[in-house]
């Protein structure tokens, strides 16, 4: 039998992080978006211990201010794309600069410098990633997915999907379905 899961990486990371901090008896305040305000002074040795423990979960303490900001940009974008509650009526550039309190130009340059990709590209990647999840779930038609992700038409979604992945949404759906069949046969 194969079970399929849908999970929220942010929530999982948050929970793991809280557990590790509690284990180390560190007082903290949760700010969200991967940011935690530590309410006490931490020695470099203690921070090293904490990092070692977090390594098991591939969680990294970001020290660099630039890296922190980039991570914030990413989290904001992911939240914007994946969370249906976050209704974005304004352009994403405006939304980002308002949410993070920096000019879009600054954010954009910083992002490209650190991640080898542009904010626009990253937004597209995330949107297509969400589209992939929806396509696989098969609850919604392509038209509905296009609407949900704020695409003007199915053609627009398909074109962007194809440009990003090299594959059409239907081919993607077909491949994943066949892969699951194959895995089920092997198990």
């Amino acid at each position, binding site marked *: 039998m194969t079970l399929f899961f849908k999970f929220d990486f942010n929530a999982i990371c948050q929970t793991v992080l809280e557990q590790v901090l509690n284990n180390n008896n560190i007082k903290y305040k949760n700010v969200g978006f991967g940011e935690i305000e530590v309410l006490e002074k931490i020695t470099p040795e203690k921070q090293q211990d904490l990092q070692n423990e977090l390594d098991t979960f591939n969680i990294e303490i970001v020290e660099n201010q630039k890296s922190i900001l980039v991570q914030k940009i990413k989290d904001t974008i992911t939240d914007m794309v994946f969370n249906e509650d976050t209704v974005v009526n304004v352009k994403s550039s405006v939304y980002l600069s308002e949410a993070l309190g920096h000019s879009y130009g600054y954010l954009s340059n910083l992002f490209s410098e650190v991640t080898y990709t542009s904010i626009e590209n990253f937004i597209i990647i995330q949107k297509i990633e969400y589209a992939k999840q929806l396509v696989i779930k098969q609850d919604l038609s392509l038209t509905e997915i296009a609407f949900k992700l704020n695409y003007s038409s199915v053609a627009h979604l398909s074109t962007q999907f194809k440009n990003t992945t090299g594959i059409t949404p239907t*081919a993607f759906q077909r491949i994943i379905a066949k892969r699951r069949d194959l895995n089920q046969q092997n198990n």
Partner: protein
Amino acid sequence: MIKTLSNNISFLRAMLYISALVILVVGALTYRSVTEVTKSSEMITHTYKVNVELEQILSYLKDAETGQRGYIITNDSVFLEPYLSARNRINNSFAELKVLTKNTPQLKSKLIDVNTLINKRLIAFKTSYRSLPKKDIEDPNFKSNFRNGKTLMDSIRDQIKGVIKLQNNLLNKRSDEYRSDLMATPLLLFSLLLCSLILIYLAYNSIYKNIKRLKIANEELEIFKESTNQSEIVSKHGSWTWDQNNDVFTFSDNLYRLLGEQPQSFEPTIQNFMQYVHPEDVEQLSQQVENMKKNVELPYIYYRVVHKNGNIKHLKAYGKSIINDEEETVLLGTTADITDEIISFRALEERNLELERNNQELSSFNYVASHDLQEPLRKIQTFLSRLEDEEAEKLSDRGTRYIDRIQNAATRMRLLIDDLLQFSRSNKADKVFEESNINLLLEAAKQDLAEVISAEDAVITSDAFPSMTVIPFQIQQLFVNLLGNAIKYKSEKRSPVINITHQVIEADNDPQITKPTKPFYHKITFTDNGIGFDNEYADQIFVLFSRLHNKDEYSGTGIGLSICKKIIENHKGHIIAKGKPSIGATFIIYLPID
């Protein structure tokens, strides 16, 4: 037919019974009449005999009288002789009469009276001739005696006449009775006979009709039998029956011929038949014969027989049990000689196999050739690109130009190889038909062409398509090729506009569909506003490597439309092209609907 016959048979049986009854009645009546007639003639004879005897008695008396008179006259005793014998004779006659009249008391008493009178007369004779010796005729005694004798004689005569009269009356009375009886009998007999004749006629008529009908049926049966014989010979099959209860076989003439023998040349038994069966098939066939006993309907049975001259023939048999009127199971079977079929089938199979092998070799050659050609070409191109990028400044102008030319040639070769590869792929046998959303395939094709579509500002409009059972990759390829073609051969004067329409049509209503395999087809029409072509090339453009334009003008390889044709052939459909120079081209695709 059988029903009318059986009805007729019960009718005839009734006729027979009625006729027999009538004849019996007639016989009985006749017997009675004949008996009556015999009885009455016996009675007449009896009456006459009585009369004769009475007449005789009278005659004897007269003789006695005459003799007496002679004696009296002559006194010669010779004349007395009749008188002397009269007594005996009369007694004899009376004895006779007594026998004759023993059943008629009335007559008997009359006769006794007559007898008394005769006795008196005879005594009167005696006295008269005794008183005569004196010879005195004049003697008054004698005279009175004589007269007395005459009186007696008269009364005897009267008496006898009376008896005869009585007799005749009795006879007449009886005759009248019989006559009235007999008068009715012939009428009855006649009417009965008439009746019987009519019945016999009806029966005859019916029999005649039946015989006539049977004769016709018989003739038809003969004709049918003969034509069956002929058709068995022509179609190389024979028939047989097997009465399973009695284990009796019949074989048709041609069944013997199928075994290479003269008709009815051996006794039709399973053992005799088995002698002709190919030794390898005997066991299997025997098993199947056993099965015949159990099952009502049998599958086809295939086996071989060996003729005496060594020829091997393939036979195919089929049998079915039926239960006849006598509740017996009879197996009716047909056996056909399928040797020719098998030979031609094998030949066809072999040819098919060979063709398939050839095709496979050709397509794998195509594939390997074009696939393996790609690798060195790609390296040539890559090295060229590196030369251009990394070593450009070290090259002379001429060198750069040459590299440019090499690049162009390589690009064209790549185009050719790619198209050839695609063509050989569309030839490959492993095609999977799937229920596909044609709209999505068209969308995918447009995505493949997204760059040129936007570069040329092409407008593509299309109907909504129903889902179809197709090889999805190939249909997408088809769309790509047709759309690509329409854009490539666009008019200089206008941006390409391509309109795609869909219709479901009946195969019979469209002359373009030759040899339809299905009653309904999808008709998909691609219309563009490009440079078009002259209709005289409409067939030629689908031929591999055929091009209507110089390769410097348009970069085609002459393979794209051949691929389209191949794809459509894979789908058992049709593709046709129509064109008008400088107006546009139309491509119509027909795909059969399952």
